[in-house]
């Protein structure tokens, strides 16, 4: 990326057209991301729609740590707030605020990953990892069967794992953007990278917003 004055790529008429092209490119990319997670949601829905899987799914879900799940949601929402403020700062040309907010967003992302690691370790200890630490006999009571419990746990690991991979990429990008912002690569006339990677970050947050009810909150009803 050349210095912020000469940010215009040769084949664009003006920065406005270039900015709109980048934003449209990211939105179209987010549509494909929506369908990657969508395929997982479809598989999840296909199994839960069948009567004899929901009991095992709900029982397995009740074993997950709802506390960390809820706290993680708040952490990710805060990181979305700082990201939105960062985009606003970039548009207004406040370079210092932009750098700080980008670093904050990356920090909250890392906090989320930290909680996630703790939760995964705890799941390992609670013998919730099929194939690694899982005792099928423990799950054989009433309509709950070990098969569907393992299915639910595989959905849990693949969904949260894919989300974590996207988040790690997001954190890396936030750090690079912070470095570039520090070097003054962005200006009120050219801040598209911050804008589009902000969209990406918010999308990853929205995915988590849907993961919370589908994975953590199905086993809790009737507890109160």
């Amino acid at each position, binding site marked *: 990326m050349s210095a912020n004055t000469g940010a215009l790529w040769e084949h664009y008429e003006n920065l406005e057209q270039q900015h709109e092209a980048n934003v449209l490119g990211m939105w179209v990319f987010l549509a494909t991301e929506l369908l990657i997670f969508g395929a997982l949601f479809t598989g999840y829905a296909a199994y839960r729609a069948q*009567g*004899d899987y929901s*009991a095992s799914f709900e029982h397995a879900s009740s074993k997950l740590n709802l506390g960390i799940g809820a706290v993680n949601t708040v952490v990710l929402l805060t990181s979305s707030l700082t990201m939105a403020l960062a985009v606003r700062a970039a548009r207004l040309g406040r370079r210092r605020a932009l750098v700080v907010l980008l670093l904050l967003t990356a920090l909250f992302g890392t906090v989320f990953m930290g909680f996630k690691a703790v939760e995964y370790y705890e799941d390992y200890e609670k013998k919730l990892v099929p194939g690694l630490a899982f005792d099928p006999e423990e799950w*054989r*009571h*009433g*309509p*709950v*069967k070990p098969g569907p419990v393992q299915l639910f746990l595989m959905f849990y690991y693949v969904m949260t794992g894919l989300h974590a991979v996207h988040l790690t990429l997001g954190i890396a990008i936030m750090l690079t953007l912070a470095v570039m912002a520090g070097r003054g690569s962005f200006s009120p006339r050219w801040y598209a990278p911050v804008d589009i990677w902000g969209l990406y970050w918010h999308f990853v947050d929205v995915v988590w917003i849907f993961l919370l009810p589908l994975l953590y909150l199905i086993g809790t009803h009737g507890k109160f």
Partner: protein
Amino acid sequence: MFPVPLFPENASTTADHVDRLYFFLLALSGYVALMIALLLIYFSVRYRRRADGPRPPRIEGALRLEIVWSVVPLLIFLGIFAWGAHGYFVLTQPPDDAIEIYVVGKQWMWKVQHPGGQREINELHVPVNQPVKLILTSEDVVHSFFVPAFRNKVDVLPNRYVSTWFHATKPGRYHIFCSQYCGTNHSGMVGEVVVMEQADYDEWLGGHSEGSLALEGRKLFLKLQCVTCHSADSRARAPVLEDLYGRDVPLRDGRTVRANEDYIRESILDPPAKVVAGFEPIMPTYKGQVNEDEMIQLIEFIKNLRAGQTPTRTEETPPPAVGAPAPKKETPR
């Protein structure tokens, strides 16, 4: 016969239906493809580029023509859809009086079990002019039971019973192919359907019977101590299994389920999954103690269990000799 067969044998009722639709489609497609080809050739020759040729006019299109050649194909297609769907419906509804034969697909062989207890590998002996219902499952990967002469195919899935049926019309030997790729010897997983006259069929049955499937199931029912709970009197701790097959069973969690092969199999391998209303989930799992073939015997036994036939626990006298093909229903001979 012409050395190279160009058309498969027609050996079942559904084959006529499929062949008629196939010939109609062949005629329709042939006509359309020929017309397009002739038009292309004619236009290319008639309007070939000549130095002094007329200049091509500026034709944007013709709305009416476009509508005609959109709507007309659509209507034809809907007609074909209805015709195909009718054939499919017929195929998926086996008549009630069909002989039920169990087929288990296993990596690279077909194991067949007749209700009379006869067992076959890669062979299926069936009587002519008699509907036959196949109940199939797989022990490992997805296979597909395909008999070209009957125009019949069904994918055989592990852990689940699928069924299909045919009504053979011509005695003879017809290919069985596995048409879903299943590994190294996928091409070798073939067999033969032997359609025989009724007399030959009965004679074949007689020669191979080692006690009917239901009888084997009954012995297993006793050997596995099922009778200790599933006895005939009502105060027992387990539901009575007489006349169970085909009934809607109310479950403990409020759902009602049709008692078909899948339900019986699941209740044997995973009893607490669907507990009958009014009973406790105390039955232990028999996973690992009952293989696919024994499972079929138990299912056949429960399907043929009529009122009063539940064996008593103290079985001293040999069981009443149950006729070789346990007459499920009085099929007219």
